[in-house]
């Protein structure tokens, strides 16, 4: 009997313990909370501080979560309580999400909140456009350009102030900048085409194409520009030996470290983005590095393609499951205002998507940043084309590129095979 009393007592105590927090949570006038999820997490405190400004001005709290993992995003988007705004590091997944019904079309909200689309650079905006429906809005933008080490150029007898003017000249310069050890291994390399990741999009654009047609309705994996781009990349491996290049690349330091290949003076030229010139990268890890930045050069036969760059970057969207879409849209409109875009992009040295924000004098103070700003406004600037099967296509391209570069495989049959397999998938995904 005593045991029974004890059990009852424990049960009552447990029930009280469970109910207490619930009672505490039920405040009569709770502060409205808007939740923003951001997939990258370099500087969560800075992001929270930025959004606090909106919260203070509107008497609510904006809770920023960064970084957020892919699995968590999917669970939240398909659940009943998704974040009010989701900011992704790239637009690749947006159309896949939209196909699953997870994304709120923004057209009516853009109109309702007065977001000025004309103020947004065309190239980054286009990555959110699906046949006239805006699925997201570009917040920040990335553009890649060619970085070169002036000291290594000088040591190789090259003019340190003159980067290669054509893709052919880049190959020639890379040869002169590559140094071998007595045992045949590499001590220094001129250029690695897939350093620190693939730049196939840029090379394919330089050769006059992409892996989709311009409106993203057809797959063009085995088109001539794709083949040319892969063969151009392959030569850097075949010249020095794939094993040599891979072993050399494996020994280079991490991306965000002073031993990163380009920072450490072991890779003479690299393709990388605008954030490198900002406070968190080169000036932070190797402030003494003597380098230059220029647009990536075009092929000699197509000098009119100078200034071609692939624009991609962070995008913000409203999940379809959000209950108070109006509040989310107002927050999105605030995020897209030139003042806030400038604030955020200056803090992280990313390109602003707003034309007004780009005039902010703080951007001009970042050395070499103007190269990227000019590239974004250049008539040859291209946006990254995405489709509902972007992830599958990107994954497959990565595998093919790896085979072509690292094993010397012929790209033609591999691209033909992928085209045959994936083209019907795209048609199916687009409901054609």
């Amino acid at each position, binding site marked *: 009997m005593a045991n029974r009393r004890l059990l009852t007592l424990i049960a009552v105590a447990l029930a009280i313990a469970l109910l207490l927090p619930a009672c505490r949570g039920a405040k009569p006038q709770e502060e409205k909370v808007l939740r923003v999820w951001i997939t990258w997490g370099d500087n969560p405190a800075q992001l929270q501080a930025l959004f606090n400004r909106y919260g203070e001005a509107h008497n609510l709290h904006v809770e920023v979560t960064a970084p957020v993992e892919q699995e968590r995003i999917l669970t939240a988007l398909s659940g009943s309580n998704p974040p009010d705004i989701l900011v992704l590091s790239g637009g690749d997944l947006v159309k896949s999400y939209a196909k699953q019904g997870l994304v709120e079309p923004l057209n009516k909200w853009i109109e309702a909140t007065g977001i000025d689309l004309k103020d947004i650079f065309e190239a980054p905006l286009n990555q959110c456009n699906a046949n006239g429906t805006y699925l997201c809005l570009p917040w920040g933008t990335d553009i890649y350009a060619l970085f070169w080490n002036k000291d290594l150029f000088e040591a190789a007898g090259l003019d340190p102030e003159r980067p290669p003017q054509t893709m052919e000249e880049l190959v020639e310069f890379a040869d002169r900048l590559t140094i071998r050890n007595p045992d045949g291994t590499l001590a220094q390399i001129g250029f690695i085409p897939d350093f620190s990741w693939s730049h196939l999009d840029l090379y394919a654009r330089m050769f006059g194409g992409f892996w989709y047609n311009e409106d993203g309705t057809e797959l063009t994996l085995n088109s001539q520009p794709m083949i040319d781009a892969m063969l151009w990349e392959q030569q850097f491996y075949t010249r020095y030996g794939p094993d040599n290049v891979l072993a050399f690349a*494996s020994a280079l330091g991490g991306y965000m470290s002073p031993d990163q290949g380009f920072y450490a003076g072991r890779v003479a030229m690299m393709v990388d983005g605008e954030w490198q010139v900002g406070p968190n990268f080169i000036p932070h890890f190797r402030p003494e590095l003597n380098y230059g930045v220029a647009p990536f050069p075009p092929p000699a036969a197509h000098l009119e393609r100078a200034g071609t760059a692939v624009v991609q970057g962070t995008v913000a969207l409203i999940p379809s499951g959000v209950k108070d879409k109006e509040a989310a849209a107002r927050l999105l409109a605030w995020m897209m205002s030139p003042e806030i875009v400038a604030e955020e992009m200056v803090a992280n040295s990313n390109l602003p998507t707003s034309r007004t924000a780009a005039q902010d004098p703080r951007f001009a103070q970042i050395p070499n940043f103007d190269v990227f700003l000019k590239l974004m406004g250049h008539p040859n600037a291209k946006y990254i084309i995405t489709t509902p099967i972007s992830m599958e296509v990107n994954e497959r391209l990565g595998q093919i590129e790896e085979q072509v570069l690292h094993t010397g495989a012929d790209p033609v049959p591999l691209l033909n095979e992928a085209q045959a397999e994936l083209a019907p998938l795209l048609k199916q995904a687009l409901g054609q």
Partner: protein
Amino acid sequence: MRSAQISGPQERTPRLAPRWSPTTRRNFRLGMLFIAPWTIGFLAFTLYPMLASLYFSFTDYRFRGTSQWIGLANYLQLFRDRLFWTALGNTAYMVVVGVPILLVFSFVCAVLLNLKVRGQSFYRVVYFLPSIVPVVASTMLWLWILNPNSGILNSFLGIFGLHGPNWFHDPAWSKPALILMGLWGTGSTIIIYLSGLQDVPVSLLEAAELDGASWLQRLWHVTIPMVSPITLFNLITGVIGMFQYFSQAYVFGAAVTTMGNAIGAPLNSTLFYSVYLYQNGFIFLKMGYASAMAWILFFIILGCTVLLLRFTESITYYAV
């Protein structure tokens, strides 16, 4: 009807209609109440998701909205999927090559840790410690060790004039690299073996010694048969674990790729079954397809376990 069953002839056959005393009934209710948290958890978080995934495997799954019933299409598509077979092959390699190596290594370590030498507890701690290091951390550590150019493993091989392989980018060496990495974390298997070794009756070992059996003969003829149930247990859990091999491969792929496609690098040689399943479900958003993969894996594991139990029946010795 119910009262008719209880009364009459059946009342005299308590085997068919057992009657619980009030105490038994109360105890039963109380018992059920106590296991209720587990039962509810099992039903809500294990059984329901399992059955749901079985249903999803027959649909074109939609994250929001109605999933469309497509019958066996996901399963049929899987058998035509080149990467499905690649992933299955890579996983089979780890099961067939990796598991035996890990078992033999664990057994040898356990035998050594069972020897009566000074500081034995210290050695036991040292061998067990790596298994409590988080998988991601230990994989990152091993990436340093295995670095083809600057890693200590290839530098060590270099002392003997051997040119170490490119563990990161050579598809022939990536799986052996992962197996090598796995040897480091076999602490729990070693502990299970060690407890088994300590249960081997000393009388049997002494009798064999008196009969003139060498250490190796005692190990082969007495110790190994006596720990065979432990070996079977480790084998089955090892096979199940290897079929679900994920974290190490995922981290490894992300670290060694230069292409941004973190999964399966180099050249799909580390595209294991669970990794491909994850990729389909969470990256390609093909949850129905991934569910079909999960059910195929379930039956593969079930089949392997049944086969292992059947084929090892005659060579497993249970002392009791």
